[in-house]
């Protein structure tokens, strides 16, 4: 009986806090994406020919966990099959947040764009009853920082 009550409490807590945290996170992601739109992140491997650039590696990482309620939903999905939307939003949030952090680092260096962006995903707390639990997403790329015009004239 006690276990059932605990389970229900955890479900309600997970549902409430999880929804609240997700909404808040999405709001902040969308807002920051708007401001960082001026800094394109491109997956192309070929850098632009024009202009002289200094380049540095930039990266951003995030570890995000799903809440208890969503994990329960995903468990149910395992019975019936189909899209596991609970985890889709988790990975979407992690990817977008990582890309934003990478862009923020690049923006701090006055970069013009980020090239050759790659993603790397890893599940962290693996092994605990085979649940995904939390994922880490790393986004990395090469930031191109325009060099002052005077330096390029000398060459």
């Amino acid at each position: 009986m006690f276990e059932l009550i605990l389970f229900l409490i955890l479900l309600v807590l997970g549902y409430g806090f999880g929804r609240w945290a997700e909404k808040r996170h999405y709001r902040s992601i969308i807002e920051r994406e708007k401001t960082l739109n001026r800094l394109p992140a491109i997956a192309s491997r070929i850098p632009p020919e024009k202009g002289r650039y200094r380049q540095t590696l930039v990266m951003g990482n995030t570890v995000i966990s799903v809440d208890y309620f969503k994990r329960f939903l995903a468990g149910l999905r395992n019975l019936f099959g189909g899209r596991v939307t609970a985890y889709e939003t988790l990975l979407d949030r992690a990817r977008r947040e990582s890309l934003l952090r990478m862009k923020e680092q690049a923006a701090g260096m006055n970069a013009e764009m980020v090239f050759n962006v790659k993603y790397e995903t890893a599940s962290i707390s693996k092994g605990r009853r085979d649940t995904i639990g939390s994922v880490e997403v790393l986004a990395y790329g090469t930031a191109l920082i325009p060099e002052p015009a005077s330096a390029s004239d000398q060459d």
Partner: protein
Amino acid sequence: MLISNMEHIPGKRITEHLGLVQGSSVRAKHVGRDIMAGLKNIFGGELKGYTELLQESRDEALGRMLQQAEAAGANAVMNVRFSTSSVAQGAAEIYVYGTAVTVE
């Protein structure tokens, strides 16, 4: 030392390839953080402790790769790639590798 994950550097010429350099680091977090992460598994949201941990670990792996590149006499590392794998529960290995080169 120049680090880049592109295959060539615009405006610069690669004079010498010095082979693959690599760095890795395995880290686990202390119990306090584990407990906090356990709580976060109920409520959902970002695990800041883990984010920091992996960031530190990645910096260390990068540092080791750079040391190796310096020892080889390179002044740039190109085509850098990251990879992560969880070795055991609560520990993650970060692996960084790239090509050491000298550029003009």
